[in-house]
């Protein structure tokens, strides 16, 4: 089973029709979105003030003051225009771009409406965006590694949870760095188990993933209620603090976002860069992708398909373990039952959204991080929208994006299929 529909064949008229229909649906959605913007956000009044600098910054730049209502109407008009264009003569690569632009405009309109007559720290929110995006980005990167060698990894959630748990336990025993290293190792072990189940024992990949999730959830919940409840010192790990890079950290807006963060943010950014180089610019990366696209051909050329799958799924597990440690060593230092709360699944969505590419996965994760932090900050502004609906927004956005995008995103051809050597 794969996480995407079959590759669209440009020669087939059926697919052309489907493409056209998707463009029309997306166009309709955008027009509806424009109407929504006008109806719901049309009552904004006053200026929206976005603070870009914080009190102790070296270089202070002024606030960004925007007249809310006119800009909201401009955003709605642009969205409606994009939607109409797509509906009438849509298709091709504009579908995705227009959808992305429309959603971005809706977010801008929403921000203006919520902030109108108020002040709001944009920099603080962007910093939180990056922080919150990291576990999703790392999970998505792990999924990229697995799916590029054609192993569907539903178990990202479990691997994140295992990393979080190990980080808390080992971090309490042997300190932060030891905890981080152990989390990576345990993530790798679960990656190896997944590889063994699906490559050697040819278990259904989705079932194997579900099982690992269940197992990790059971094991970590069991230990945390059986052991941590009584021995609290085992669940009290040190936390990695944010480190400000000299000079770079002082750049307004971008500095706090990218260069005044903890080890997880730096680690994730480096890993995304390294894995992009590895997957697309090295010989081993090419071989790995060959295994994901056409294992039989790769095998014929002398690439060891099983070994490649074992290696990359284990590597993916290690990345997920690192990402999981973020939950404990990167934020609160304490493990709670099921503390990943479905972020592994969102990471999976981010991977598809990011088209099986590390950079795409990172960007998609940033979108999720953005909506996550937006929801947190907006609770302070006291908008009349119930907080539950704000909390829903990222998931609704995911559905819209996956529905609008999936036809263009293409999974590795052999994704989800076991390879049986002759």
């Amino acid at each position, binding site marked *: 089973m794969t996480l995407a*529909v079959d590759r669209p064949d440009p020669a087939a008229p059926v697919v052309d029709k489907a493409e056209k229909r998707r463009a029309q*649906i997306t166009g309709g959605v955008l027009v509806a979105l424009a109407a929504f913007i006008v109806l719901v956000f049309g009552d904004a009044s006053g200026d929206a003030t976005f603070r870009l600098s914080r009190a102790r910054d070296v270089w202070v730049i002024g606030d960004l003051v925007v007249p809310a209502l006119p800009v909201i109407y401009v955003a709605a008009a642009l969205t409606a225009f994009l939607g109409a264009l797509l509906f009438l003569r849509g298709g091709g690569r504009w579908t995705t771009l227009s959808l992305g632009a429309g959603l971005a405009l809706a977010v801008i309109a929403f921000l203006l409406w919520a902030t109108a007559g108020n002040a709001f720290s944009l920099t603080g929110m962007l910093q939180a965006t990056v922080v919150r995006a990291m576990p999703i980005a790392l999970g998505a990167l792990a999924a990229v590694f697995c799916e590029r060698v054609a192993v569907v990894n539903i178990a990202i959630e479990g691997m994140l949870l295992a990393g979080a748990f190990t980080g808390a336990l080992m971090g309490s025993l042997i300190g932060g760095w030891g905890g981080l290293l152990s989390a990576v190792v345990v993530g790798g072990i679960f990656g190896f188990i997944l590889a063994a189940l699906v490559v050697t024992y040819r278990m259904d990949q989705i079932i*194997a993933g579900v099982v690992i999730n*269940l197992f990790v959830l059971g094991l970590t919940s069991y230990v945390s209620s059986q052991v941590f409840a009584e021995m609290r010192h085992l669940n009290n790990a040190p936390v990695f603090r944010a480190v400000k890079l000299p000079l770079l950290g002082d750049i307004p807006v971008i500095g706090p976002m990218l260069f005044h963060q903890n080890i997880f943010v730096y680690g994730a950014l480096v890993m995304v860069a390294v894995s992009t180089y590895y997957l697309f610019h090295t010989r081993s990366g090419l071989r790995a992708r060959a295994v994901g696209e056409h294992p039989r051909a790769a095998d014929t050329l002398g690439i060891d398909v099983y070994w490649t799958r074992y290696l990359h799924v284990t590597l993916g597990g290690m990345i997920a373990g690192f990402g999981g440690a973020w939950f404990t060593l990167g934020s609160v230092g304490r493990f709670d039952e099921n503390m990943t709360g479905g972020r592994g699944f969102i990471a999976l969505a981010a991977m598809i959204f990011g088209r099986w590419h590390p950079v795409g996965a990172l960007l998609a994760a940033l979108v999720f991080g953005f909506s996550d932090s937006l929801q947190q900050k907006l609770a302070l502004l006291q908008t009349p929208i119930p907080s539950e609906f704000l909390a829903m927004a990222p998931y609704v956005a995911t*559905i819209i994006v996956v529905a609008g995008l999936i036809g263009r995103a293409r999974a590795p051809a052999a994704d989800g299929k076991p390879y049986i050597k002759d």
Partner: protein
Amino acid sequence: MSMQDTLDTASRKLLERAAPGRVDFENLVVVPLFAVVAALILGALTMLATSVEPATIGRSYLALLQGSVGSLAAISETLTAAAPLILAGLGLALGFRAGLFNIGAEGQILMGGMAAVICGFSFSHLPFAVLMPLCVISGGAAGAFYASIAGWLRAATGAHEVITTIMLNMISYRLVDYMLRLPWVQRPGRADPISQSVPPNAELPALLQWLDPNLRLHAGIFLTLLAVVVVYWLLFRTKLGFEFRASGASPEAARYAGMRASLIIVLAMATAGMLAGLAGANQVLGVLGRASPGFSAGIGFDAIAVALLGRSHPVGVLFAGLLFGALEAGGRQMQVDAGVSIDLIGIIQALIIVFIAAPLLVRALFPWGFRRPDSGDGRS
């Protein structure tokens, strides 16, 4: 391949044809049995590793047995816990048969349960014979509607149901939180999110309370058994069921045979959602009597395991659901008697599925339990 090997293979095939029972028997009885035993052993090792005394381990497994089948009360608890697992598991199994991996049972259960509760307290003046079925039906309908969103998205845009159902789960949690605070849903005089109670004439009647008021078994178990029969009939005796299975086995072939793939996807998702919605209605009308945040309590995820364990066959799902219900009920007893956290059950359940879903692994662990696959010596 040598002549001897060819002969061996041929004779084994003949033997298999002569005695088809042996392979089925191994797959249906021996593998699950070994899986349960292996999972219990590994569970015991887990307890040892977390410094639980060996005596306590023995006591906890005894409690597990007693709490699941050791008394009438235990059996009542087992059946009560099994009913929603079987209902939702049937829905997921039907989806698997149609090639749809629906992770959204959790959300569908929540929606079904909410609909049943709201129906119950809104029409509390209606007599039992009208109101109870109405609530059950509205639960099923709400689940069907919620699931068909994902089905429609899959059919119309190709959005994969794994992603959309996960997202719909997340949305459903927030939706329930929101609905529980609406003034006409929230229980009067309460500040926390909790719904009004289901009136007695909407409840699924308790079956054994004339024996002991603590026995919770309710009429939902009949609903469950009926669903097993209906799903079996639907899957294996109707044209629609054949279309479900055909498009699951080979979407291409199904399309060339003239089946309408989109319609089948939406219908399969709706039927799966209806069954999950019934599970939700079963919970609120038979056990809980109200709705509170997250009242689905992970049943939707356990049901995935039940469907996998039952190999997506209605009868298999029935037995898998009973096993998981027994583990659930026994686990509670275990927590009370031996002080071992019920989360251990989660580990045991996961291990059982690993061993069932990877028969190669069980055969590697317990080679003596099986006929060796390549020996043609006719030990069977």
